[in-house]
């Protein structure tokens, strides 16, 4: 598709492009080299700073941090998903006094910084930081899941619901038996992509003192001395990126794999994982 935007490059254009590519690559490599040199001058790459990674307890602590990150993310996802389904049904209810309050709640949750919700739970309910982190993530992601699934239901061909009602299903049965299963399948890439956001947001637990990966880094650096901050930080950043890229790939894989079981096929993975693309917000009939 993108190739439509320009001619297949001729020999001259290819040469220009090649030169451009080489120059660009050299520039970027130069920048990276400069960063490396500057850091090296500060002694960041001294062996003794990296020697800590030969210690088992350092890895145990990192693994603990990662475990805490994954536990919070998994628990939050498991709780938020059914809640999201429920709120989605309430949000598209035919009854105004159910639909409107549900919408207000969802808008409220969507408009709130996750870290503020975590802090709120921590301070107002005096919970442990683990509960605060999970609760903050659940509140926010419930709203997002609800909106994603709603978008899925609205993108289904109208005939699906009409057919359901025609064969005598009630409106609720049609939602549960016909529309929801297809919507969830259809929006699977978005839902999985939202998991990346959820996983990333666990790092906000750092701010409310939950012992996740980032805080494990800080605690370790505090204990060992700031000289070790950079090595540990780089390793932690790498862990985050690798895991998140894996989950992102999973979303893309599901999208490519597609599905023949829904009337509309599977939607593309969202372009903006940070805020799912939503179709029209008009009330559904």
């Amino acid at each position: 598709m993108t190739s439509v935007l320009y001619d297949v490059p001729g020999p001259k254009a290819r040469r220009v492009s090649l030169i451009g590519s080489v120059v660009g690559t050299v520039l970027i490599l130069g920048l990276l080299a400069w960063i490396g040199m500057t850091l090296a001058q500060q002694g960041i790459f001294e062996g003794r700073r990296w020697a800590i990674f030969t210690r088992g307890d350092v890895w145990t602590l990192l693994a603990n941090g990662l475990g805490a990150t994954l536990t919070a993310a998994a628990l939050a996802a498991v709780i938020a998903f059914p809640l999201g389904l429920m709120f989605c049904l309430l949000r598209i209810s035919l009854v105004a006094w159910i639909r409107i309050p549900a919408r207000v709640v969802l808008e409220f949750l969507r408009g709130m910084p996750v870290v503020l919700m975590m802090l709120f739970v921590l301070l107002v309910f005096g919970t442990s930081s683990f509960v605060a982190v999970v609760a903050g993530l659940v509140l926010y992601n419930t709203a997002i899941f609800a909106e994603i699934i709603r978008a899925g239901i609205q993108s289904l061909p109208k005939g699906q619901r009409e057919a359901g009602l025609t064969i005598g299903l009630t409106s609720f049965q049609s939602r549960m038996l016909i529309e929801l299963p297809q919507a969830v399948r259809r929006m699977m890439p978005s839902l999985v992509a939202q998991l990346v956001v959820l996983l990333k947001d666990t790092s906000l637990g750092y701010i409310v003192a939950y012992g996740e990966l980032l805080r494990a880094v800080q605690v370790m650096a505090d204990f060992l001395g700031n000289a070790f901050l950079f090595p540990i930080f780089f390793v932690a950043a790498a862990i985050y990126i690798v895991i998140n890229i894996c989950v992102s790939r999973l979303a893309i894989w599901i999208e490519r794999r597609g599905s023949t079981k829904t009337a509309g096929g599977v939607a593309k993975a969202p372009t903006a994982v940070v805020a799912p693309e939503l179709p029209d917000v008009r009330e559904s009939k």
Partner: protein
Amino acid sequence: MEVIIENLPLYWEGLLRTLFLSVVSGIIALILGTLLAAARVSPVAALRGFSTVYVEILRNTPLTIAFFFAAIVLPRLGVTFQQFEVAAIIALSAYTAAFIAEAVRSGVNSVPLGQAEAARSIGMNFGQVLNLIILPQALRTVIPPLINILIALVKNSSVAGAFFVLELFGYGRQMANANGDQVMAVLLGVAFFYLLLTIPLGILASTVERKVAIAR
């Protein structure tokens, strides 16, 4: 309630700082993100590669890590700044630009093929096709998702409160500590001021969405 009224000046100051961070980072991110999207579809392989790698890495990095990098690692590289807002803006705009690039790219993909073909057939080159035909149309469809990204940006700016910038969330924490007996009121106040920024943006997004849906 009283505690909110008493501390109104602090809320106000926090709101302004949050707004400042969001607006400046938003503008930088929009420009950077559009450039990245253009690079992503350009004929030059290196640009495509760079853009892809940038977007993939930044999208999969937690914002706290981006902040950590901008506020603590960058100064080590000799990029020092006297105002910590600069670090916050670097982190927020670098992070947000990746999402904007993806949104714009999908917008480019959503413009019907015939548009590009028609433009090409009347002799336009890549830059002209992109600037005059594709991007104006793409931007229309991507405006709702872009606004959603900007809403996320406003909310994300709260992370700055833990990285040396006193904004709405930071002031909220401070007030919560000073008024230990009225934490709930203080934090609901903070929530209210965030909603003051995000809800109008959300309404704008759905209005634009409706307009765009009708126009096409």
